[in-house]
């Protein structure tokens, strides 16, 4: 390859909003549920039914728009996007084309070359479609409309990204912002955050953009990174062979690590967009907008600063804890119960993160309650258990959210501080290890550590380490 190429990437990110009810009816948005149980005449497109906008959807969209520095269209409209497909019960999707709620924003990402702004072209509100289930056994397709009408926002970026790293950084940034706003849990695997990648390549220095393709079916950050790399290579190869890139939609197959064309621009549909006459324009008053602005929660940057100031945490701790809204929530709730922020931080950063890594989970998957972690920290502080035992108990809290006091009592893990019992055990240990006693008396401090360790072992880790140290020293120097 003699020429130098630049990759140009823009993203369309769909985010499922965390409203309790759907965008145009009162049905539950809860994930799962038997097929077609969260449905009504509106979200199944029954004749005569009419949509009514869920106000919370507008508020979430506004919150995301404000947090991403967007302009707000205080007069916006819904449009119908017409296309036939069975997952779309009305055969049109209610979306926004002509006047989306948010426009012209940006977020800042960190890159190797320093901070960089990624432009946001627009954010619009729309409804999700149902789910088709293809029954190969019976050779038929079934439709589940539980997801039909679940509210989405689509965040359309400018083509400002140049590498997979930038794309991931941008997505991470969006995810954090939206999670902090409580507008969505943004889980790629469950589909509550979905990204379509628009990618083109051009020679470095070229003024014009190359022909782009759109890639769909990307459901993890890793898949996105692999798809970008794959598509970049594919397009460069085409150009190097003197062929053209065709504007088309491609489906990424992460198992095969390759993509295939779904449809080209030539057979692109005409969606015949027009304003939905069943919905009145959304008029966002200055007061409403201000109220949403006033309710904006603390976002990551602010939290990061506060953790260092208020809790005196090092930057490193603060970054990890605030790297997930859920983790930060657990941290704050635990500190509120037991104080000792650094201690809480240590448990989360060291033990919790280790266990997550072992189980290949994300901080979002943490399920234990702050009460139980706080109780555990209290027990350590009061010398009710020692650290070794505490780590075992934490694993139980992590996995099953057990009440540490009950668990310790049940398993008999309480710390043994009884002098008589300790003394008897230590006397046996000393009698069994004359060499170590000899070594210590010859000035080898380390030998004492061995004897303490043997004692702890004999006591199944439950002995009060301070007391053991004290008694061992006393008996050795007698």
């Amino acid at each position, binding site marked *: 390859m003699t020429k130098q190429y630049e990759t140009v990437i823009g993203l369309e990110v769909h985010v499922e909003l965390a409203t309790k009810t759907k965008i145009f009816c009162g049905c539950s948005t809860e994930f799962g549920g038997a097929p077609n149980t969260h449905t009504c005449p509106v979200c199944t497109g029954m004749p005569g039914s009419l949509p*009514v906008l869920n106000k919370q959807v507008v508020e979430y969209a506004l919150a995301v728009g404000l947090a991403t520095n967007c302009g707000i269209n205080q007069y916006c409209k819904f449009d119908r996007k017409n296309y036939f497909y069975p997952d779309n019960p009305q*055969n049109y999707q209610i979306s926004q084309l002509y006047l989306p709620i948010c426009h012209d924003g940006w977020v800042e990402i960190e890159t190797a070359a320093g901070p960089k702004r990624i432009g946001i072209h627009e954010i619009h509100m729309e409804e999700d479609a149902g789910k088709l289930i293809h029954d190969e056994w019976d050779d038929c397709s079934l439709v589940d409309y539980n997801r039909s009408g679940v509210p989405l926002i689509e965040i359309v970026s400018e083509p400002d990204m140049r590498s997979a790293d930038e794309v991931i950084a941008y997505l991470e940034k969006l995810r954090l912002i939206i999670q902090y706003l409580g507008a969505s849990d943004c889980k790629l695997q469950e589909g509550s955050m979905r990204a379509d990648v628009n990618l083109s390549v051009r020679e470095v220095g070229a003024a014009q953009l190359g022909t782009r393709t759109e890639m769909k079916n990307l459901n993890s950050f890793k898949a996105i990174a692999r798809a970008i790399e794959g598509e970049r290579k594919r397009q460069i190869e085409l150009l190097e062979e003197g062929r053209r890139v065709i504007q088309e939609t491609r489906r990424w197959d992460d198992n095969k690590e390759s993509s295939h064309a779904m449809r080209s621009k030539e057979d692109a549909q005409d969606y015949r967009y*027009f304003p939905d006459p069943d919905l009145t324009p959304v008029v966002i008053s200055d007061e409403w907008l201000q109220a949403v602005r006033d309710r904006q929660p603390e976002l990551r940057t602010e939290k990061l600063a506060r953790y260092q100031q208020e809790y005196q945490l090092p930057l490193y701790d603060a970054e990890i804890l605030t790297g997930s809204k859920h983790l930060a929530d657990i941290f704050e709730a635990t500190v509120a119960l037991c104080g000792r922020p650094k201690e809480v931080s240590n448990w989360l950063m060291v033990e919790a993160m280790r266990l997550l890594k072992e189980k290949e989970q994300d901080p979002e998957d943490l399920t234990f309650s702050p009460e139980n972690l706080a109780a555990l920290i209290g027990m350590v502080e009061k010398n009710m258990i020692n650290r070794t035992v505490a780590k075992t108990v934490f694993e139980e809290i992590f996995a099953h959210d057990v009440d540490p006091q009950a668990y310790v009592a049940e398993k008999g893990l309480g710390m043994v501080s009884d002098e008589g019992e300790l003394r008897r055990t230590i006397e046996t240990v000393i009698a069994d290890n004359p060499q170590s006693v000899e070594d210590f008396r010859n000035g080898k401090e380390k030998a004492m550590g061995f004897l303490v360790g043997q004692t702890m072992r004999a006591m199944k880790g439950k002995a009060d380490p301070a007391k053991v140290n004290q008694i061992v020293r006393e008996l050795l120097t007698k």
Partner: protein
Amino acid sequence: MNSLLEMTAVQLGGKIKSREVGVVEAAKAALAQIQAVEPAVCAYVTVDEAGALRQAEAVQKKIDAGELTGPLAGVPAAVKDNMCTEGLLTTCSSKILYNFVPTYTAEAVLNLQKAGAVILGKTNMDEFAMGSTTETSAFGVTRNPWNLEHVPGGSSGGSCAAVSANECFYALGSDTGGSIRQPSSFCGVTGIKPTYGTVSRYGLIAYGSSLDQIGPIAKDVSDCAAVLETIASYDRKDSTSIPRKDCDFTSALVDDVKGMRIGIPRDYLGEGLDGEVKAAILQAAKVLEEKGAVVEKFDLSLVEYAIPAYYVIASAEASSNLSRFDGVKYGFRAKEYEGLHNMYKRSRSEGFGPEVKRRIMLGSFVLSSGYYDAYYLKALRTKALIKKAFDKAFEKYDVILGPASPSTAPGLGESLGDPLKMYLGDIYTISVNLAGLPGMTVPCGTDSKGLPIGLQLIGDCFQEKNIIRAGYAFEQSRKYESPKIARDAQAAAGYGGAQGGPADGIRNRIAETAGKEA
């Protein structure tokens, strides 16, 4: 002659209240009339005989218990077949919905039921309300009770014919471009299309969503005011519904038009208007003038742009509204097809009639990329200008008066061959929908063929009371007449019970029509 059937809805309601007439008795009288007249008139798609009698008994109990005291309690009514009725076939007179039984009831119908209405059945209409003659129905052509060789008008032709032939005491219709007012005019009954947003559209199967309104059809203005008062409601399920505090329409039933300013658009009296219709309209204006109204002619601009703007907007909305009828979830699905795309294509090709297909194609065209600005946006701008022209007129006038249609009811089969001519027949009614105004038709005479002529009264937004007052004052000058077929049938009628009918006591024309096709 059964004088019960000649009563207006409010008169019958009064007799039921005073226990002079029983609710079941009234329902049976209406069902008997239906049995006698339907073979000739074909106003209903579905008659729910068993359900009507069940409702009648339940309503009588509530009246006896003092739970229902309204003026319409116990009065039998009919509903146009584009309003959903839970458990009762709702077809829009289209093959594509030949088997559709809704799981819920339209808000306007619920409001009627709460007021003690007894719903007799569902009336025939132009398929999906597209047409001006009720000939585009997939389930038979409704005849004009005044002359069975003529159309009843449309699209609410079944509702108007049923009221006219005494097959119900009042009916609900829907009006997108004149579909209540024009057939009311042709059938010699009274109908109101209220201000857009007054009656909930929830459960009304949409044709042109931004223009559709449900309204009452009855023998006189008093009935229409009472029914409109009952069905009007602010409904959170309909985003275009408007909260109003002035829905006490019966308070406007006053025989007094002194000082009322009435304008007649010269554009409504020009070329294309039948001479006999013109004479009757001007005579009606004179009656109001004699009663003290100030009547003058004026120029309402943009009249000629209403029809093209209407057909662009209504068809555009319809092309999208009707896309849900695809054979996937309910309704008709073609018997043979290969794959999804072909299933859509065949189901819709076989399920929709030619007029519906014409408008879906027209609507799809005007919304397609490259044409959207030139047609759809331009039509929307025209709509706004028409509204402005009316705003200006209503600075000077309380009521605008004119004909409802250029002629009386055409003969059967005369209209469909020339759709453009049929569209032009909507010229006086359509701009009212584009501007969202209330409009009413009141009978004002007959032509030399004995066919009814209707007077149209148009009010400013939310000023139904003005047209109700003018209409009420006018109708005091003449007596309501029902057609001969209605009176003749009554002489012989007596409810025979649902003999020979289906076991569930619901009769419909679906099987009958399907048989003919095969």
